[in-house]
């Protein structure tokens, strides 16, 4: 995991306790369980003999909520290292990677495999610390050739290669 950096973290702010990994993880599980319970509010529960659609999901959600609470308590009681600062540098890859995948998904059936790969590689390359344009272009060409060889030539998939007009 990423290294903790205790030096630049300001000392005990009451809200900081919430930023501990275990506390956050517990809250995440509680939130997911709450969402699950809300979504399944109208599912028939049935009886143990004839379990309805909602029986198992709601059971699991309550269980998950209990576990989440226990994890929060554990997190509050432990002597944890101060939480890490999250910088823009760290968040950028999340945005970039997601964007590149979404762009690929939206593009593939419209403009075909070749241009979609260019799009994905082009956007994805931003996530690297030092982008070199020529290098990225070469990488894109190699990846296009490779994907074409594996998926179109090798497996004979029916993916549009070029834009359909």
């Amino acid at each position, binding site marked *: *995991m*990423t290294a903790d950096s205790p030096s630049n973290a300001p000392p005990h702010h009451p809200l900081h306790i919430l930023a501990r*990994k275990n506390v*956050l*993880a517990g809250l*995440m*599980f509680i939130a*997911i369980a709450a969402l*699950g319970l809300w*979504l*399944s509010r109208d*599912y028939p529960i049935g*009886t*143990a*003999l004839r*379990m309805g*659609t909602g029986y*198992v*999901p709601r059971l*699991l*959600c309550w*269980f*998950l909520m209990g*576990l*989440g609470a*226990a*994890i929060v308590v*554990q997190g509050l009681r432990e002597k944890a290292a101060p939480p890490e600062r999250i910088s823009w*540098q760290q*968040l950028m*890859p*999340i945005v*970039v*990677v*997601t964007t590149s*995948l*979404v762009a*690929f*998904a939206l593009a*593939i*059936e419209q403009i075909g495999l070749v241009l979609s*790969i260019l799009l*994905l590689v082009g956007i*994805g*390359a931003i*996530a*690297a*610390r*030092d982008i070199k344009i020529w*290098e990225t272009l070469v*990488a894109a060409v190699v*990846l296009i050739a*490779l*994907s074409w060889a*594996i*998926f179109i030539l090798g*497996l004979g*998939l*029916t*993916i549009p290669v070029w834009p359909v007009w």
Partner: protein
Amino acid sequence: MELLNNLAIGFGVAMTPANLGFALIGALIGTLIGVLPGIGPIATIAMLLPLTFHLEPVSGLIMLAGIFYGAQYGGSTTAILVNLPGETSSVVTCIDGHQMARQGKAGSALAIAALGSFFAGTVATFIIAAFAPPLARVGQSFGAPEYFSLMVLGLIAAVVLAHGSVLKAIAMIILGLLLGLVGTDGQTASQRFTFDITQLSDGIDFAVLAIGVFGVGEVIANLTRGEESRSVMSARIARLWPTREDFKLAWPAVLRGTGLGSILGVLPGGGATLSSFAAYVLEKKIARDPSRFGRGAVEGVAGPESANNAGAQTSFIPMLTLGIPGNAVMALMIGAMTIHGIQPGPQVMSERPQLFWGMVASMWIGNLMLLVINLPLIGIWVQLLKVPYRFLYLSILLFCAIGVYTIGNSTFSVLIAAFFGVAGYIFMRLECEPAPMILGFVLGPLMEDNLRRAMRISSGDPMIFLNRPISLGLLIAAAILLLIVALPAIRRGRQEAFQES
């Protein structure tokens, strides 16, 4: 002689040119990703799942299995030469293996690792062949309550034996079980958790979830971490053959490692990583002079390296015979089987002997291939370490995207994979291991099915799980495991075992 007959069937399947080719491809890809840090066997197998849809089931599984045990070989190569474990299962190999390399005994360390792994692989193959049929027969006598309890035990054991927080791991399993429920309820045909999205009515595709969490999630995690500097040791490997003295020290350790790994691999949650850690601790404990460890002790390489390969292979036993995955890789293999319409469980062996024995035989062939290919190719693998991550991640990302799209020619799947990529990254940041979630996801629908069936047998009385002796025994075992892990002394020991490095 049933054993030899079965193996003959297996070798008949595994020796066809096509299947030999797939074993070779799998072993090579496995070694490659084993060498490269930043991509592991789970992510790779997930990424290649869509490819196997277009292959024969046997060929697909042979290739995926090759990736898994190939990665153990590759991971140790970099551990010894560069002091970088390519895989978690070779973390302990770094300790003494790299020291040996610094003392000019790199060739010896590599050869002992490779020969020990091959020996362990051979033994493990025979263990699978010998123990799988009786276990499958036991499995066939199981009813719904026994199956449900067995899955509970499997999930609990997978949590307890894995590292990290037990509470979080159980929560991740529950999350996986919940994700497995998304889609149309098989019994009542009503929709669950689908947000009224048509594409979700068939549930979340297993491969999409795995590629998202492990493939995309790992890419994001690695990118946020920034590139680490790798200094590749350029020292030439003088001699590849170990000295007689090294041999004498190594072979008892190989035997011990093989034995330990074979046992730990069968346990749910076991497999390669746990085996190698345990073997290192064992070697250090029984050594006459423990102070040699950390300074290039041959046993410190031979034991764990044999153990991780033995464990990697025997972890196939519960998956193949009972349909219960012990670790995330096995969950992926089960996913690969279901995709081909094969219901994993004890009936696989009797209904599809070609598939079962073909896979077992191919593991031995694959191990032989690794031995023959890898030692001469070590120079090339080390060169590959110099490939910067900025090329690697673009390729991984692209293969994830195309792979997911080709599963059902569905752009929606790519969006789902992107979503789970971010989720996977958040899990990793919060130190919630995603592997138990995958186990839960695979077992979720099966568990609900067996729970409902058991309840119908007992007319709604939950005591059925305690009244049936086998079911009761399995649940008691699960409870004991949970209790053990709750004891402070053991909890501390468990943490130490995983922090040995």
